[in-house]
């Protein structure tokens, strides 16, 4: 289980990284924490000719917070967030999610940018970022663009990222001080990817609410009917019916178990939120 051969360059600037990606005619890939890519290399599931290591770009580690939004650099690691080394203006939501991803050794290196760029349908960050309405900032030799994570993720391991683009960071709007949230995740064993993961958030006064679900289909998704129910303070039982509507729209291959499973994670997340 050894990787096929490839070449390697360590990028010194974002400009250099995107330029290399754009100019190199070979099949190039970016490597950040390597916690997803290296296993894929070892299994020969990824066969790049060139790896562009962006892991040491301080530009991608920059983090700042305003009243309106949190800016997280793409290279912020799960452990950085878990340890509170970056701000979490969402009342501990980010820290809780970070601490539940995989294992500590993986969290030491795994980055939020890598997680979203990979777009694993069962990954944690895409679900949270969807629920929070975050946008990705993306750089290329042509300049930079911003795109909501919802639009950025196209499907299973598929994003709108062009070969010469890299994610620079994320802008996450801050709903307000009275925000509440709930999460629930089912795994086959501790640290494994989710079989189902739900994140719900709402603003205390009812003008904002969102629900997002992962591991239910090719890409994580928002649950609009459920969100509406949350906004209108629907009681648990009514909410269950709204969840059912959303899940029907997802067409889970007509698999009743998946419907029960996802319903239960969503309802648990809601219960957790409402108990806050």
């Amino acid at each position: 289980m050894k990787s096929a051969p490839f070449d390697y360059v360590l990028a010194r600037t974002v400009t250099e990284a995107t330029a290399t990606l754009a100019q190199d005619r070979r099949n190039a890939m970016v490597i950040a924490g390597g916690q997803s890519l290296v296993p894929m290399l070892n299994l020969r599931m990824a066969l790049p000719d060139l790896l562009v290591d962006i892991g040491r770009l301080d530009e991608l580690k920059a983090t700042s917070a305003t009243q309106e939004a949190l800016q997280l650099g793409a290279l912020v690691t799960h452990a950085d967030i878990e340890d509170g080394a970056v701000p979490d203006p969402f009342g501990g939501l980010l820290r809780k999610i970070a601490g539940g991803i995989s294992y500590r050794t993986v969290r030491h290196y795994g980055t939020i940018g890598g997680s979203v760029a990979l777009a694993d349908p069962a990954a944690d960050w895409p679900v949270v970022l969807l629920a929070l309405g975050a946008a990705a900032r993306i750089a290329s030799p042509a300049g930079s663009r911003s795109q909501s994570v919802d639009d950025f993720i196209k499907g299973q391991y598929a994003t709108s990222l062009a070969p010469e683009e890299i994610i620079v960071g994320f802008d996450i709007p801050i709903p307000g001080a009275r925000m509440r949230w709930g999460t629930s995740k089912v795994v086959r064993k501790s640290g494994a990817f989710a079989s189902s993961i739900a994140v719900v958030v709402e603003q205390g006064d009812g003008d904002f609410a969102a629900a997002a679900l992962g591991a239910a289909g090719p890409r994580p998704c928002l649950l609009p009917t459920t969100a509406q129910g949350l906004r209108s303070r629907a009681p648990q039982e009514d909410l269950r019916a709204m969840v059912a509507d959303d899940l029907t729209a997802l067409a889970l291959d007509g698999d009743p178990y998946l419907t029960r499973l996802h319903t239960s994670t969503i309802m648990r997340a809601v219960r957790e939120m409402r108990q806050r």
Partner: protein
Amino acid sequence: MSVEGGGKGWIGASLLRKEDARHLYGHGMFIADVHVSGVQDVAFVRSQMAHARVVQVDKPARHAANVFVLNDIQPVKILEAGPELSAHRHSPYPALADGRVRYVGQTIAACVMPTRAQAEDLADQVHVALEELPAVVDVVAAMRPDSPRVFDEWPNNSYISTSVVEGNPELLGSAAVRVHRRLRLNRQATVSLEGRGVLAYWDHRLDELVVYLSTQGGQVKRLALSRMLGLPEHKVRVIAPDIGGGFGGKNRIMPEDIAVAAIALKVRHPVRWIEDRREHLLASPHARDHTYDLTICAERDGTLLGIEGDIYIDAGAYALWPTGAFQEASMASRNLTGPYRMRHLRLDAHTVATNKAPMGPYRGVARPGATFALERLVDEVARELGREPFDLRRQNAVTAAELPYRTAAGLKLDTGDYIAALDLAREKIDLPAIRRRQVAGEPDGRKIGVGFAFYTEQSGHGTVEFMKRKFRVIPGYESANVRMLPDGNVLIYVGVQNHGQGHETTLAQIAAHELGIDPGQISVRYGDTAIGPYGFGTFASRSIVFAGGAVGKASRALAEKIRRIGAHLLQTDVAAIRIENGMIHGPSGKIGLAEIAFAANARPDQLPTGMDPLLESVATYEPTESGGVFAYGTHAVVVAVDPDSGVTEILDYVVSEDCGTMINPMIVDGQVQGGIAQGIGTALYEEIPYDEQGQPLATTFADYMVPCAPEVPTVRIQHIVTPALTTEYGVKGLGEGGAIAPPAAIANAVADAFRDIGASFNETPLSPRRVSEAVDLARRARGGQR
């Protein structure tokens, strides 16, 4: 840990392990750590199809000489594997494919390059043309007349089918209570953390083939390699270094072992193959995969009468040398009455060939399946009768007064108190408290359940027993060579193979006990056919019984000679001599053991006239009762289950067990806890599903779930000690027991959680999906109420 002085304190002492230090400092030497200069790595080209004709193998021109197919490693003889029974069909298993591949992962070609990465590069360039054949995947369907065949020349897909008819099974048809269930343990791997591995080269100085092999028994592997490669045995040396777990998975001779050894005879440099995890999940010996279609019969008063039905063992595509997987069926049938007074049996057992990886032994062999089937059925009978399952067990279990007891299928249960083990487990798990908790309900909506399972674990069975099982190599004894060096310290060579069981410690304790010295003065060595005595290795919970007995016997012979020399030097009678704390005591004087050892080895002039010098003794040992001895115990477990997600959490786990005398209780507890962790894996997590084309669906740890610390509770272990009557020191083997009962106990607990709706849980692992679906099915059957 200190024990009171004198030799006699060592048996029963929780002596800290001698083998720890090297691992704590990273000085262990596992197969991949063995460094031989010039070694090149092997990567195998493996079949991507479950069943196919190999039409062509194209070697890349640039490296054609580095790619080996079957023709390039000849001559290699294929040994017939499986029991020595003419009814058992031969499934010749070549080291590299011979024109046909019969499972995904079968070796087709070996690529040899300076590094493993380069060898894999080369393997990727080898083009294999396969012509797909219909795959045999489902074990029951495989037995239908119209099923495709794994072996064209066989009349059906059965390696062997056998029947067990005991008592008067005619009675069963009219039994008042008949409960029929189909039960299944799915396929899994053994998952030693270190994979398999082999490194081989021709040693020109010693003029022999050296084969480093990660194996549970080197002597038997040498026997196989020598016959397969056509080399005399003294020209083959097998060395087993530190072994990073085996659990049965390293106790068969495998195609990779043979191919690498054969290649070493063709090239001028050492070659090695280190199994990676994907290969392990694809092609190491697989395990379990039992299917039971059984009816258990009882009287209305709860008296269990017997069982009838069919057992299917999915043994995969080939029988592995020496014994294949036949034991699974025979042991499952014979253990199906458990500890109960059940006298009537009619079982048909089929060991079936399918297009899956060959099955090998795995901790517990067959008994996790039999115990799962039986103990689940007992619970279902109790439910049918509205009884507490625990009470039904107690009512039917053989009592202490009835022991020794010959079961319907002929096992002679020896010593112990089964009722006491049941009661102790019930008390420690606090059954009434759980029943109260169930009534109260859980705030989080989960359901609580409690389950019990009783198991027995045969060990120390010897020559006659293995003759009955028609083994090709009869592991009927073990041997030990105990040698006292001139300074009074001791070297012991044994034929068993420590791979975590702590033999360096426990066997030293036994020798220390017999020789009146400190275990620190004793080194236990094993794992090199060039120096150790013949022996069969470590499996079947046999080491402490057999090797412990052999070490005891050899040490006693040595002690006797020491006493004679002591008597001579102290000028007294042998009968008046005692050995204690490294001294020989006579009535009026004493002498150090070291002086005697020096005399025996280096001063023959001081020995009694006519006495041969040296203090060295070789002994073999077999217990007096060839049917073996039976450790036993009860597992009791409490679970909490979420009906919607189907996730099961273990809240409490209690074991009450009896393995006779414990040489080292600390190590016993470690074996129990470790076995249970594996049993929890079987019960809840581990599975290699195959799709309809015979493609395995779990080939990495992303899909194959191994329980980690959060999944495995600390087990509360209770001991009952009934020394065995037919073994040295009263020991019984216990290495496998922990892994036997968990699937049964946990499934019973989950079923208990949903007993109000009658949900049935008859297939492992009890994955969230299986659990939730079983609950849903039961709810629907009850008219959709939630």
